[in-house]
């Protein structure tokens, strides 16, 4: 075993990249859940975003347009979920699971002609000055732009939820939809918007895989990232900053276990592979979990 071959600076830098797709999907889901809606279809929206982003980026040659397409694709799928759960009052858990099935099928059909094609490249930013700072520079300031988009979204979500009137309304809707309704807020409309935002973010997360991380389209390529994103929202206790921590912890454990394997640590590989999940459970038990939004998962029907 040679632990000295693990470079902590590079480990931290790659952790930020590894965490980005789940962070993007999770921040969207966090807003959805703060509005009182549980959408378990993140995996389906991510994979749809992955294929939409890829198709648009290949078609236009622009990864940025690809990301916009991915957000649109994810939001469209989320809208289906929104119509079902908000207007037709269907059960959110079952609808979310159905959405995943639907998204996996839809993405595979859309992507049929796009196998074995390379996405247009999306270069890293080497931010001037900041990127040249020793240690901190390579860890934080030499990534591709979507890493920063993810961070900005976390900050913006925190600001929106806690510093704006609209954020307060959204949280009120999530805590007690009947009271919010009695105060005259449009519960259903607010939730539809939150659901679409969640879909757009999940789409971005999926497209990060198909346009930056892999970058290629293959069926089922999200391989369960959407479920991890869901877990991280609960882990974070529905707080944006803790979401960042959760995503980095999970991404960090994954990167670390691979590092330990490559360094030849004599722990059986299967236990190392389990470690990110076990660590998530352990940390969750130690840190008392936040309280879920009061109306989470409950059906809202205005009964006048």
């Amino acid at each position, binding site marked *: 075993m040679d632990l000295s071959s693990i470079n902590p600076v590079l480990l931290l830098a790659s952790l930020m990249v590894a965490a980005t797709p789940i962070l993007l999907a999770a921040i969207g889901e966090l807003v959805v859940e703060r509005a009182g809606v549980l959408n*378990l279809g993140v995996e389906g929206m991510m994979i749809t975003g992955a294929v939409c982003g890829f198709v648009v980026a290949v078609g236009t040659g622009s990864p940025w347009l690809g990301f916009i397409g991915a957000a649109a694709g994810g939001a469209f799928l989320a809208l*289906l979920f929104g119509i*079902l759960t908000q*207007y*037709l*009052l*269907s*059960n959110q*858990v*079952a*609808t979310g*699971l*159905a*959405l995943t*099935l*639907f*998204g*996996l*099928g*839809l*993405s*595979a*059909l859309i992507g*049929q002609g796009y196998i074995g094609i390379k996405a247009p490249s999306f270069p890293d930013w080497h931010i001037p000055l900041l990127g040249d700072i020793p240690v901190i520079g390579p860890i934080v300031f030499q990534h591709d732009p979507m890493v920063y988009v993810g961070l900005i979204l976390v900050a913006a979500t925190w600001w929106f939820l806690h510093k704006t009137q609209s954020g307060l309304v959204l949280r009120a809707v999530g805590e007690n939809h009947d009271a919010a*309704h009695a105060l005259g807020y449009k519960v*259903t409309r607010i939730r539809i918007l939150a659901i679409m935002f969640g879909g757009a973010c999940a789409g971005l997360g999926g497209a990060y895989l198909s346009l930056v991380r892999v970058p290629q389209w293959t*069926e089922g390529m999200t391989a*369960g990232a959407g*479920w991890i994103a*869901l*877990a991280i929202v*609960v*882990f974070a206790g529905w707080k944006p900053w803790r979401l960042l921590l959760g995503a980095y912890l999970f991404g960090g454990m994954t990167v670390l276990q691979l590092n330990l394997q490559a360094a030849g640590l004599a722990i*059986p590989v*299967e*236990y190392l*592979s*389990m470690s990110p*999940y*076990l660590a*998530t*459970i352990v940390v*969750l*038990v130690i840190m*008392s*979990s936040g309280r*879920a939004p009061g109306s989470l998962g409950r059906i809202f*029907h*205005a*009964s*006048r």
Partner: protein
Amino acid sequence: MITLEKRAGPSKVWAFATPLLAVALTMIVGGILFAVLGKDPFETIRTIFLDPLFSEFAWFYRPQLLIKGAPLVLIAIGLSFGFRAGVWNIGAEGQYIMGAICGAAVGLALYPMESRLIFPLMVLAGAFGGWAWAMVPGILRVKFGTNEILVSLMLVYVAEQMLASMALGAMRNPEGMGFPGSRNLAQYPSAANLELIKDSGMHWGIVAALIAVIFAYVTLSRHIFGFQVRLTGQSPRAAKFASVNPARMILICLGISGALAGMAGLFEVAGPAGQISIDFNVGYGFTAIIVAFLGRLHPIGILLAGGLMALTYIGGEIAQSNLGLPGAAIQLLQGMLLFFLLAVDVLTNYRIKFGKGGTV
């Protein structure tokens, strides 16, 4: 302006009519989809929904429906208790895997001894494995208030790694030329979960699923525990006044679902699948969640929903091989079917009113 008005009680008529309506809508939209994909819509719909039941080879497909549907029903019945009481076990897939591992471990440890007691012992071990795996989120929830959705889900991934480790290591077939995977239990008479009547597809797992349906029906409609479950789900405060112990409720609900999922895993590994392999689990634990909700958490409903899901799987395979339909189109159709079933359910509980005035 269209508004919805809540019915005093669920409509009996619509409760029966909505599933038919949903299937009809799926056939129409699915037919359009198939036409777009360049397939004959009528033939495709017939292949998926009717061929497994009434075609020339239906004698082969009907037993297959039982084999495919039984684990779904068995797991979904277990989940329905918790879902009614607001206990969210979404890690049945992990409990299914652990049940299979524990049950198979007993059988493999006793190989090649022959005894009538081996199979019952394996069933117990399977149920225990699933139960124990479900107790982890249960105890964490009761002791530390940890969210059971997250823990049960994380444990699915842990169980998958455990499965791979077993297939590659401890349980690897010593006569398997170094390849991963255990001995085939279906070829070990004392441990095999074989067909009870030749060519009927009937194995112990199907018997267990039917018993579970009856057991759940009786418990929910006649027994005090069923009443407590329903009360906890509808109003946790009222349940407290009725002296329902919430911690006990959580542990019992998770325990039942874990044990049934574990048994489903054992019946599968000892019968249709035959062996512990890296890819033993195929998502029954997740699909069963959908089945539970499609059946409206009612035992009979779950039985029918399990059958319908099995039908689309088998019909979908026939359509793939006979008509060259892509597998993805089948997934899309299944998703659509679920959407429509969930969407039209609104008619059961609400009345649609046309007219002005509304606050939706």
